[in-house]
């Protein structure tokens, strides 16, 4: 099944690594937003199957972006997975309590990223 993932991350390198990782490994489509506000707009218009959201971004950070997504009826039900470099358990727990499905820590293995997402979201590969 051709899934559509929206990645919201300001880092160009991460954007490209996620894109090639997912497209080569499983062939899902990856939409890119470089900021929280761009991500919110794209989420509304594109209705992706899932959103990968970076926590640390300039201007609007991941947590504000998430609350915007959750406050909007059009985007409320899209599953969101946080991408974060913070690896401490307490930080992961805190992020998870904000209403995201799960947290993937950076650096991630781009070869298994799609499988990881599929597992989190109970998607069949």
């Amino acid at each position, binding site marked *: *099944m051709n899934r559509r993932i929206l990645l919201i991350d300001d*880092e*160009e*390198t*991460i954007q*490209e*690594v996620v*894109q*090639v*990782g997912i*497209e*080569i*490994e*499983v*062939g899902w489509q990856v939409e890119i937003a470089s900021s929280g506000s761009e991500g919110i707009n794209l989420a509304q218009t594109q209705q992706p199957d899932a959103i990968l959201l970076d926590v*640390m971004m*300039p201007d609007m950070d991941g947590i504000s972006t998430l609350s915007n997504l959750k406050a909007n009826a059009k985007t409320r039900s899209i599953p969101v997975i946080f991408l974060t*470099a913070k690896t*401490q358990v307490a930080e992961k727990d805190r992020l998870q309590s904000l209403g995201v499905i799960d947290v993937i820590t*950076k*650096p*991630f*293995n*781009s*070869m*298994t990223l799609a*499988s*990881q997402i*599929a*597992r989190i979201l109970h998607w*069949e*590969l």
Partner: protein
Amino acid sequence: MKILLIEDDKTLIDLLTRTLAERSYAVDVVTDGEQGWIYGSTYTYDLILLDWSLPKLDGISLCQRFRARGYNTPIILLTSRHGSQNKIRGLDAGADDYICKPFDVEELAARIRALLRRLNCNFLPVLSWGDLQLDPCSCQVTYQGNILSLATKEYMLLELFLRHRQEVLSIEDIIESLWTSMEYPAEATVRSHIRHLREKLKSAGLPEDIITTMRGQGYCLKPLPQAETSESILASEPADKHSKHLAALTLIWNKHRPKRQQQLTTIEQAIAALQRGTLELSDRLSAIVAAHSLAGNLGQFGLYRGSELARELEELLQNNPNREQWQKLSLKLTALNEEIANERNISPQLDQKLAADSPLLLIVGDVNSSSQITQEAKIQGIRTKTLPTSETVKIWLEQQQDRYENLPQAVLLTISFTNLESDLRQEYLALIAEFKLLEPSIPVIVIADRDRFGDRLQVARHGGSFYLTQPLTPSQIIAVCQQAIQRSSRCKKIMIVDDDTELLQVLPSLLQPWGFQLTTLQDPRQFWEVLQAVNPDLILLDIEMPHLSGIELCKVLRTHPYWCKLPVLFLSIHNDRHISSDAFASGASDFICKPATARQLAHRIINHLARST
């Protein structure tokens, strides 16, 4: 696609050969188990349909024979035996799927498609090349929505190319895949089918010939032209998905070299300004952003040391460093520069680094369900290697020449206590002991087909780590494997604080076989700084040291919310009850008297690591 049907019921043979031929499969039929073995071990098939009850050699025994000899062709077992016990027996014997008679041929066809999809790692139900689509379910080929009328062999050829993209298929490969073993088509016949297929694709409107002729080698499917954006990343078309992925990452790495250089310069300028005492807030913030970006990106390419250094720089800069700290920052930046400069040619290392990232699970014995387990392991970021017999394991182990970095972190061993001859069973049990005796020992997870105390005892006696009984789902199995892997000592960071120079020099080589990452520290005054830089999984502390005692250091650790649960093992030359009780009162996890053998020490470390994970 070529299927071997091993079945003695004439009516069923007629029905299945007709049904499968309609779906463009080439089918060889044999009517007894021995013939099945001869055909199955002589020719290459994409799949075997195997009846349970057969003359000469029954389906279960044949299945076991295929698996025991290392044949991993997918097998679907056909049988009139219902009930989960029979299904379990069939699957345990090495079958990949099981279907009860009477069955719906459509269901069987769907199971064949699903199995072939899974084994080809091509999870999409429809095969495609751009707008050209082949649906194995309806056997229909369309281009931009219009149906193409292909003859059976043309359809089979197209399916073969689509399933084996990026492989060069010789005429012999094609004959072997598309014709039954009783047919001997001339090479010219194959070429003529390919020519017809090309003509039909052309007249359907495909802009280019999708099949490339490789002179003297055969034919292959052309790579699909990429969309403009991804073309820059996927400029070259390497042989498989894995190398394609690596090539793409290498291109990204190279593409962003100027940006990394710019980020390093930003940090360098901030440090120079700090040294002069003129560091402005805006410059410090730019340097923080640059260090943060480097920390995130370098790890993505396997440069973990570089990532760590960048993160340390980020933290130092965030804490508004004073002028005296410029040298410390400068040293870290130099180290970071070196790490990055060492990786100018990243592609050879990247593969190794990404692979080294994930632990290796060795699957022994049950090749039948290994594809599902492998898939589940992959999801969990575990690499797998499958070896069919204890003999092949021994050969493989010898080939590794005790290089522990090549050895697995855990072994999954399937033992059929019901079916195995006692000497084979002994061989498997001996294998458990062999892994146990390795240094460091490798945990063996045994999957058994029955739950008897005697069997458990045998496995435990030989050093098995887990004894699980069927039925189990792949995810249950992998969860236990993960547990075993986490218990393993490999790459666990151990920090040793001791003022005994000699001990610090000798311990790393003594503990080397266990694969720990050791950091030694002689001066306890640097303890806190080194601790934070290393972030160890366990600490070994000497009791008596100049300036600060181990007990004091342990007390400090226990006051910190992050470090309060870190395992701390004391090493002391004093076998004194008062000293040990002081150590435990300060929060020690264990107390070991010097001299201790490396083995004793390693086992204590491993035990504490296991409890803390």
